[in-house]
């Protein structure tokens, strides 16, 4: 760690210049709750750390006509207590409240949670279910948008290229017919990494489901959308039989591993249970 350089730009322009100038060696740090432990245990040894903590335009929660925008450096605590988030995306608010512990939530950022790309990243699931888009600043002052569903490429591997940073997360405000639910299974009631986690958004037209978004965490190399289950639900009346089919397909679509937190069979079984529960909750 003692050879690591550290820079702390104060605005977006400076940040852009640093990232472009040092794109091969710069590592962004936001809350540091992933990066610092990774550096301590030898997993990462960055040459240059660029701290985005001083950049004001990076931390905000905004609402406009059709969209909610959240700055990449917004902390999980800010998201958990935001009225805007609670009103328009209660599943994001509740998953933020369940992330880590109060100390972590005060430091951890939403951008860091997504860029770290852990299969257990708690905010990724509601954001996937909310059709979120990620805005990325690339070297040369270019901006591009990526649908979150296309952002995670593989285990801890994302669409972010060298020198790129996430600037904000944007998702459409759900309409009145759309409701959601989110359940995280952990091995204790707080400060628990998820063992299985599901977020669901359903748009209903009477009894018929018009649009379904299902995201699952900790059961595949990436936080994933489960499109086959979504397709099964869309344009159908949600019945007990359909739910059973969904559960069966769900188990086929995921690829959980066995580790010290739980076996693959356990993960697979509870994922199906919380899928059903989420759908029932979203409907009630």
């Amino acid at each position: 760690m003692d050879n690591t350089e550290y820079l702390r730009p104060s605005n977006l322009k400076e940040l852009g210049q640093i990232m472009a100038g040092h794109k091969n060696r710069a590592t962004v740090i936001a809350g540091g709750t992933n990066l610092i432990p990774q550096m301590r245990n030898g997993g990462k040894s960055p040459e240059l750390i660029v701290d985005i903590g001083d950049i004001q335009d990076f931390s905000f929660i905004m609402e406009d006509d059709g969209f909610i925008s959240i700055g990449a450096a917004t902390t999980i605590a800010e998201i958990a207590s935001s009225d805007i988030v609670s009103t328009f995306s209660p599943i994001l608010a509740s998953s933020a409240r369940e992330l880590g512990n109060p100390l972590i939530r005060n430091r951890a950022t939403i951008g860091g949670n997504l860029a770290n790309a852990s299969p257990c990243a708690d905010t990724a699931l509601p954001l996937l279910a909310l059709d979120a888009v990620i805005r990325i600043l690339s070297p040369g002052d270019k901006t591009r948008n990526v649908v979150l569903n296309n952002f995670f490429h593989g285990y801890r591997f994302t669409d972010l290229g060298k020198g790129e940073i996430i600037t904000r997360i944007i998702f459409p405000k759900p309409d009145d017919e759309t409701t959601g639910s989110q359940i995280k299974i952990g091995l204790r009631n707080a400060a628990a990494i998820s063992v299985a986690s599901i977020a669901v958004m359903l748009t209903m037209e009477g009894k018929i489901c018009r649009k379904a978004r299902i995201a699952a965490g900790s059961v595949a190399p990436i936080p994933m959308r489960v499109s086959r289950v979504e397709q099964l639900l869309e344009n159908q009346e949600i019945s007990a039989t359909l739910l059973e089919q969904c559960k069966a397909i769900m188990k086929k679509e995921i690829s959980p591993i066995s580790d010290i937190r739980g076996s693959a069979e356990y993960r697979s079984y509870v994922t199906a249970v919380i899928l059903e529960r989420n759908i029932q909750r979203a409907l009630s």
Partner: protein
Amino acid sequence: MIAKRADTESVKAEYRVIGKPLPRHDAWGKVYGETKYSNDYKLPNMLYGKVLRSRYAAARLLSIDTRDAEKLPGVVSVMTAKDVQNNETVTRFGQTHAVGGFEGLYRVLADKKIRFKGEAVALVAAERRDIAEKAIDLIKVEYEPLEGVFDPVAAMQPGAYQVGEDKSNVICSYKVRKGNIEEGFAHADVIVENTYRVPMVDHAYLEPESGMAWLDDDGVITIRAATQVIEHFRGVADVLGLPHNKVRVIAPMVGGGFGGKEDITVETYLALLVWKTGRPVSLTYTREESIIAHGKRHPYIMRYKTGATKDGKLVAMEAELISDAGGYVYLSPWVLLYSTVQATGPYDIAHVRVDTHTVLTNNTFCSANRGFGGPQPCFAYESQLDELAKQLNLSPLEIRKRNYLHTGDAMATGRVLEHRVETEQTAEKVLEALGPPSKPKSPPEKIGRGVASSMTSYGRMMFLHDTSRSFVSLDLDGSVTVRCGVQDIGGGQASSLAQIAAEILGVPLSDVNVYIGDSALTPLAGTTTATRQLYMSGNATLKAARVVRDNLLKKAAEILNTSPENLDLKDREIFIQNHRKDTLGLKKTDPECNVNYGGTRKAVVAVETCVDDDSDRVVALEDVVKACAAEGMPLFNVAQFNAPTRELIDFKTGQGKVFADFTFGTQAIEVSVDEETGKVTVLKIVSCYDVGQAINPLSAEGQLEGGALYGLGYGMMENVIMEKGITLSPTLAEYLIPTAVDAPDVETIMIESGGGVGPFGAKGIGEPSCVPTAPALANAVSDALGVRIYELPITPEKILKALGKI
């Protein structure tokens, strides 16, 4: 929750400080973060120590090359086994009396054979912590990996891989034989037989192993470390080949012990580095080191066969317990002896056969952990009892009531329980306090309740001839000093001594100052382990304070022209008894309300109001003290309390007396279980103990609540997961303990029978309070679901498996 004190009559009105819920004298420093723990001290010129640990669990150590590490700028010293004068000694108990028998090898730094992953191989002292860390990486160690053995049952087999240099991996075995087991089972109408498993668990104290040491002006190696045993100074001196009085250990406030700081931790390493460099050295383990490389609670495999008659009377119990000791012996034989003596629980059983074994493996070594061999068998015998109750259609309370031991009964070891046994009362009280059952909210939710009792010893084994010493003195202004070598590990060990001295010498608690934990300057008081400090050092302090009091009263009697028996001592006054207005009934005193807790930041003063009316019948304490001083009458005393002793038990039958007394208690738990996810929510825990006499009900209640949570962690989630000797849960992200959000409402009830062997009839509760929680939880889950979990921790996954869902 505020503790209920069951037996209000026995809140003895004549006590003034004892039995009062007084805020502890050390409370404010902790609240304000001002209390200094071992890692909070620094000295000029101080070096940082670091330990290189073995990468393998089983290996032969071929060579160590320290040259590159030594060349690194800022490295002052690198040490390996060859630099340690006496690298191998034996652990006994590190205390006042060296006792033969099962002495464990204590190897300071590895040589020859590596016995577990994380074993210390080399030490570094450097100018900065990061340099020390880097130096560790530069030490080249050549290993020849060996196959190792990781399962205690496999390790017991003939021809198994040998963990150490001995002929067998079996460290020792014990037996208890009572009656005729075959005959017992022949009389049984129902027999249940099951195998139970409990995991290896960590102490998970807030403060990891830590200390700092320096050479004082007289060349004494002075070690200030987080320890439960300052008397390890002897063991440390032996390693360095120094006279015992050239090593001094000081224990500041300890940030949690739970048995994990009973064995030597950093002390020897510090002493070696200080001796070699002549400079102060500081060393604190990382959390990973603490979990991987320091002693744990033993995992056990326990086969229990229990038989009862139709009407629920236990007639036979056969138990076989195998404990995994890990790589070194440490306290394993003793922990196992506790399990053996307590294997039948607080029950009267005619025919008993217990066989126990503790075995070396290449896992992390195991040693003392709160309950010291008590929690493991309690999980088994209490689960068995509920299984029998189910088959016999009896309630869990009923089957227990038909089998509890009572005062005067003999245990399976033949030992007669001559002191108070109130287990039945504790069981009735917890169930009453649990109230009417909760209603399940929705279909997948099931409600269940469980109860479990235990008997747990307090005080060390009697053949160890335990002693403690305490010094009490009165200063010229009437203030009191207690000096006692106790280690305060957060349980209020020091504060209780202050209360005892205040009570006997008739001064408010704020007038007492306590010096603790210094092997050179405070009288040696033995270990803060075995739930022995209140019992042992409380009695020593009581004894010393009484001598001082007697001298005072003698002098006061002369002044007041009466005899000492007529005198009483209160609020810094000595007076002729039945003379003060309040005691004459003019102002009836209620022990609860006449105490005024005026708080200041540092000290809390308890002021009792009194009015005196007759100066020739009352004399101020200060005046008596001065009169004594003028005549050279001693107002100090060092007293030694000797625990009752017995010789070793008969190891062929397990018959004999091992402990001075036991603490009896029961816990009841209500859970809600989600049948679909397997998630258990603990709705309420009620814990009731006969504490004998609560010296400070706030501290006692703290122990009962903390014990219940400690036990709940054991029941629900704690697990040092090892695979081939490698710890897969080396940090607190994988090693889960309950958080505040997991802590249920804990209601505590104290019975104060006055029947203990501690001061004022107190019993010990530090360890007993955590023993029955896990089985109460297991019984509650089984009640909710109709299936039993035989292996701790009870995780959602195990529940779903038991329900056949996965």
